[in-house]
């Protein structure tokens, strides 16, 4: 895996060193050092919350520039369902798909079509496998990372199934190769609502090797599409997916597709944290399926979108009502279940333990408590750590000096 790959970078000149991003990071992965926000990448789950909270637009979500598609002779676009929520009065998906061809792609494969295949595979997995209940969805890579790092006791509840874009990418590539297009000519590009997917797809999370050639931002593609959409004539029927797949763009969409009545859907990373705590305490044992999305409103709330999540959600609902079919029929539907399963287990991460040795870790914790007694417990962030506790941890870990508190009465 490429360790230098990150979901967010910093515009050094724009960062004022305020504490906005640091205070909202769900895994306390940000410190302010020398007046600039610094991400502790080993703790970052890629949720994009810091991008959302930065008042100075200094946090830059990672994505590939549109021009990178030119590196390939045969370009395949994989539009996320949330892309459709960006356009007002959209009467059909075909309009957007034809627009994508117009701006330079040779082929489109809807991620919503991949979503419908995943829903079908989920039904089969529930019927065949002895799954641990409640099942937690794995479509949001930030949630998967959060569980992997902070809620390890719930790892076994994760539905070990690929994400819609993964399946879309694999099938689109396979089909192109079958039609005689040389494999080296094919470039597969996801048009993404969120930077977490950049990380997941490029590092090959749950895959043996990366399956995508580039992740483009909806925000960038939107403007290119907008230029061509109004003059589009001769719209060809390209859309395959039905309303079920489009519904994955909003929170609850995946859960509804499972046909399980006892489901819970939570969105927004703080709410997700609450649900995971409740699950760990055994509080949600009467629920069968838990759908968690780190962004508010689901994927429509991703930081690479243009529209606010509520407007996008209303538009997707409207678009759904115009689609005749609930699901599309694919020949790929008959693929064996193994095609849909994760190819690799999650990497074991132990970033939140104070020490690998339990006795030493407990000793460090004692030290932390001693330091905490001397601190004002204001969690003001002025020292560059998100809370007094985080500051004390940093002191014990030798990261900062114990005199770093600026609010302590001397």
């Amino acid at each position: 895996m490429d360790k230098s790959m990150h979901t967010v970078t910093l515009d050094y000149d724009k960062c004022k060193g305020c504490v906005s991003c640091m205070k909202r990071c769900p895994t306390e992965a940000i410190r302010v050092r020398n007046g600039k926000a610094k991400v502790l990448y080993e703790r970052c789950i890629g949720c994009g919350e810091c991008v959302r909270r930065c008042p100075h637009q200094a946090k830059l979500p990672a994505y590939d520039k549109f021009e990178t598609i030119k590196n390939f002779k045969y370009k395949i676009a994989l539009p996320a369902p949330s892309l459709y929520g960006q356009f007002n009065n959209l009467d059909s998906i075909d309009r957007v798909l034809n627009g994508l061809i117009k701006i330079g792609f040779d082929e489109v494969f809807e991620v919503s079509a991949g979503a419908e295949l995943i829903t079908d595979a989920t039904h089969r997995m529930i019927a065949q496998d002895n799954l641990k209940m409640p099942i937690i969805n794995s479509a949001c890579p930030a949630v998967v990372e959060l569980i992997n790092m902070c809620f390890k006791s719930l790892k076994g509840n994760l539905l070990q199934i690929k994400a819609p874009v993964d399946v879309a990418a694999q099938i689109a590539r396979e089909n192109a190769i079958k039609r005689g297009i040389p494999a080296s000519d094919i470039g597969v590009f996801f048009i993404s609502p969120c930077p977490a997917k950049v990380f997941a797809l490029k590092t090959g999370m749950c895959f043996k090797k990366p399956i995508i050639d580039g992740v483009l931002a909806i925000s960038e593609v939107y403007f290119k599409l907008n230029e061509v959409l109004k003059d589009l004539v001769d719209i060809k029927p390209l859309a395959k997916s039905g309303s079920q797949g489009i519904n994955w763009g909003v929170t609850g969409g995946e859960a509804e597709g499972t046909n399980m009545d006892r489901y819970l859907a939570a969105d927004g990373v703080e709410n997700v944290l609450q649900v995971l705590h409740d699950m760990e305490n055994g509080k949600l044992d009467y629920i069968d399926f838990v759908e968690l999305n780190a962004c508010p409103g689901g994927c429509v709330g991703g930081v690479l979108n243009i529209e606010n999540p509520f407007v996008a959600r209303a538009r997707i609902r409207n678009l759904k009502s115009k689609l005749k079919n609930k699901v599309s029929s694919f020949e790929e539907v008959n693929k064996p279940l193994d095609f849909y399963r994760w190819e690799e287990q999650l990497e074991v991460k132990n970033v939140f333990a104070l020490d690998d040795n339990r006795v030493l870790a407990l000793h460090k914790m004692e030290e932390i408590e001693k330091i905490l007694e001397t601190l004002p417990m204001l969690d003001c962030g002025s020292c560059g750590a998100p809370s007094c506790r985080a500051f004390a941890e940093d002191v014990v870990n030798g990261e900062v000096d114990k005199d770093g508190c600026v609010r302590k009465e001397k």
Partner: protein
Amino acid sequence: MSSLHMEFDVAGNNFVSAGSASDEVKSKLKSIGIDPTIIRKVAIGMYEGEINMVIHAGGGRAIVDLYADYIDVLLKDEGPGIADIELAMQDGYSTAPEAIRDLGFGAGMGLPNMKRFTDEFNLQSEVGVGTEVRMRVYF
């Protein structure tokens, strides 16, 4: 030998904050690298205990001592006490009022689960005085 002593107030009739002591202890256990399945045992035992104090005793205190090899949890309240401990320990036996059951609590699994998920469990109670539950989980 290192150890960590923690005390928490558990507020009565507050289902929203119930579980906050358990969440805090979980985060400590994660910080010292305890196995996730053991963390889950502690979490469930403590959470059920907190809920019990909220429902039946108008709140109480959780006193936690964390050592390198085990954790001790003492839950102490000055509630009405338990008249028949043997009966209270049976699966599904509950004295929770209807209104509480409507909230999804009070299924009569609290005490049995606390016993099931912990390695040592001891319950002392006196009617009109209060209840003390001691639980130990080994790492």
